[in-house]
């Protein structure tokens, strides 16, 4: 393992911000830590970088215990949330900074700076002032600066947080492609699930300083570990249910359940695509409370007579109007029993 975090604990004024976190990152792996603000994900990065001392636990990099090694000798890269480019240096001076601290010669520095600016798509920008860059350009310079010393592990704190949506979607693809090409090991944190799923080989969901779930994007998406993860991923249809053999009893009535699911009192997730709309006289009777256009589909908010609200995903053409009466049936393939 390139990085092993063992029972890492950080407390701020007695309150644990990292609570005995175990985390491993393999070489060439891209791991994305996902969690709401305050879940401890930035502290996790700072602890690995050596900027935040641990109250207990170890940081092991490449098989060696680096817990007590100061930040500047850990040899990891960190890209800050708001870039933290040095305003008094130009683009080239920023990118070359980490090379200079390692004693690279001027010609080596110049060569590598040129290479990296090429790599991040800003060829010839070395002489530009940092203040004159757009948000996206600053992003690229920060990335080039972090990559320049060829760190064994590159960490990204909300790498695309401040950029507008279309730029973000384009950059995330570029980043994944770039890291794959360079073979960089990456540990990133973000609160944006779309970003995490698009970038990562593996997603780690954090809650209150603990790891709530770890798995491939597909695993996490298809089977969230618990109600918290499911709701954080944006799923609304999460309820307590009594799961039996291929059927579960929920406030919405009986719904089909996967055959291999654990039985008993469980948390049940119905993905919006699994809520099928049928004529009002069949299935669970609901009123359409709201509809939101989502580009590829319409999210419809349904209100049954005496049960929690339901969210359904409808095709653009067949979406009902607000106030319509509809019936609901459930699709077994889109139902998951959590935990």
């Amino acid at each position, binding site marked *: 393992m390139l990085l092993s975090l063992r029972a890492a604990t950080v407390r701020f004024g007695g309150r644990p911000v990292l609570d005995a976190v175990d985390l491993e990152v393999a070489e060439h792996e891209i791991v994305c830590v996902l969690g709401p603000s305050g879940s401890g994900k930035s502290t996790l990065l700072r602890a690995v970088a050596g900027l935040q001392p641990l109250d207990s636990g170890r940081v092991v990099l490449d098989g060696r215990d680096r817990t007590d090694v*100061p930040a*500047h000798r850990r040899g990891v*890269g*960190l890209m*800050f949330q*708001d870039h933290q480019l040095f305003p008094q240096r130009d683009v080239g001076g920023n990118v070359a900074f980490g090379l200079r*601290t390692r004693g690279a010669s001027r010609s080596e520095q110049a060569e590598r700076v040129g290479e990296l600016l090429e790599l991040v798509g800003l060829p010839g920008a070395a002489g530009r002032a*940092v203040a004159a860059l757009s948000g996206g350009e600053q992003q690229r310079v920060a990335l080039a600066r972090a990559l320049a*010393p060829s760190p064994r592990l590159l960490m990204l704190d909300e790498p695309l947080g401040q950029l507008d949506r279309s730029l973000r979607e384009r950059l995330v693809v570029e980043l994944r492609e770039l890291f794959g090409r360079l073979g960089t090991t990456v540990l990133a944190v973000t609160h944006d699930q779309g970003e995490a799923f698009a970038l990562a080989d593996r997603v780690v969901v954090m809650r209150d300083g603990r790891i709530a779930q770890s798995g491939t994007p597909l695993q996490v998406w298809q089977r969230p570990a618990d109600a918290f993860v499911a709701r954080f991923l944006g799923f609304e249809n999460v309820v307590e249910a009594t799961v039996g053999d291929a059927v579960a009893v929920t406030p919405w009535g009986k719904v089909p359940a996967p055959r291999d699911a654990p039985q008993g009192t469980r948390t049940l997730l119905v993905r919006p695509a699994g809520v099928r709309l049928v004529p009002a006289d069949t299935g669970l009777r609901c009123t359409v409370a709201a509809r939101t256009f989502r580009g590829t589909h319409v999210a419809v908010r349904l209100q049954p007579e005496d049960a929690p609200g339901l969210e359904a995903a409808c095709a653009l053409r067949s979406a009902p109007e607000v106030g319509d009466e509809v019936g609901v049936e459930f699709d077994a393939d889109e139902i998951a029993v959590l935990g």
Partner: protein
Amino acid sequence: MSRTAAGWRGNAARLGLMAVPVAFFAVFFAYPVAAIVARGLKAEGTWQLGRIGEVLAQSDVRQVLWFTTWQALASTALTLLIALPGAYVFARFEFPGKQVLRAVVTVPFVLPTVVVGTAFMALVGRGGLLDELWGLRLDTTVWAILLAHVFFNYAVVVRTVGGLWAQLDPRQEEAARVLGASRFAAWRTVTLPALAPAVAAAALMVFLFTFTSFGVVQILGGPTFSTLEVEIYRQTSEIFDLSTAAVLTMIQFVAVGAILALHAWTVRRRETALRLVDASVTARRPRGAGQWALLGGVVATVGVLLLLPLAVLVERSFAGAGLGYYRALTRGDGGVFLVPPIEAVGNSLQYAVAATAIAVVIGGLASVALTRRDAGRLVRGFDALLMLPLGVSAVTVGFGFLIALDEPPLDLRASWILVPLAQALVGVPFVVRTMLPVLRAVDVRLREAAAVLGASPWRAWREVDLPMVRRALLIAAGFAFAVSLGEFGATVFIARPENPTLPVAVARLLGRPGDLNYGQAMALSTILMIVCAVALLVLERLRTDRTGEF
């Protein structure tokens, strides 16, 4: 279409606001200074410019110039050396008693120079504390002056540099750390360049204050050491050589102008392109032995250098006589004064209140006029002009008042208002420097929002700007009050013998021999110190880290 009618109206309004301060400065600053220079250099209606060369050729004048310059350089270097660690500690560490300590280090800055001189006299002079303990006297050496200057200007460095330091994003250094820079290398390559303009600005301010130092050198310099300002005073009031005084005044004027121009340039540079964060989030408790040792060292320095002289001053005011010296202040024995010295307290307070009112009105109008950053060269020049009274010889101003404002239509010789007017001149720069950064920090979009909602410019100013700058206004008033209270160089000329101010009374008492006079000087200085310190502690409760440059 860049120059619309509205644009012209805005400019006209600004010029209107500027008219009052400009007139004030023309009448009460430029005119008296020009008058006294003319008096010195004009004989029978023609300018005697040859005098400049003659005066400069005198070896004792050259010696004064040389001493003035090198003691200012040495004082500045020593102040930076001692105060920069303090700036760091105040910016980055959180520790119990920080607020109190911050107030304590600022007290010396608003103390009257006369009190500082007296306090150091009591510490390092003949019969002073060090003399009694180890037979050590520094009052015949330049060290007394240098240490007094550090005492005075410690707060300038801590406030100017520390204020910015606290707002620098610590993650800039962290970014350097993860790129492989050691703690010191990160500081040197990232923090120091960001701080450099603030350090330069503080150094220039300290240089300015020490270059024009009067009260401190007057008391501690003895016959050996004399700055330009002291020499101007001597030439004017003891030797009555007005032409030499005029030439020296002009030399000081040029030097001060150059320093202020440099200062304005560094301040403008400081405003560019730094990432600033809220100062309250960057400080944390010291970690590890090294950081605690640094904190301890700074606290010890403040104790020895800043508190000890004041403590000795207080001790001397009681020494051997209990409250005797204080009681003596209430008796008019016809010796030094025509009135009991204690009346100086009332005089000083009245003058200072009047001076504060004048300074706040003049400085406030000027600040509002200067609020807009993009307001061109003329306005920037005006900004620099407002700083001039900080450095131009107060002695010259005071004497200029006497000879220029003594005939109709401006015959103020007999009027009490003369003293507050002179004191307000020194207060205005402090008002402007406190108000302007706050006014400029008010987001333009707030005013625009008010305008869109139908508020006239005046109404927008009243309802948006004023509530936000109210605190700054109070702080500015407090500074002006303390500065007026301590003003010495000009007041010593124009205060009437029967209405002395506190600093003038102290200086007169010190000039007399005998234990009783000395003890009374200490007692009066203690009173003055307490008044200033109380004014400041009230201010400290109002202050936020973002207000002002002092």
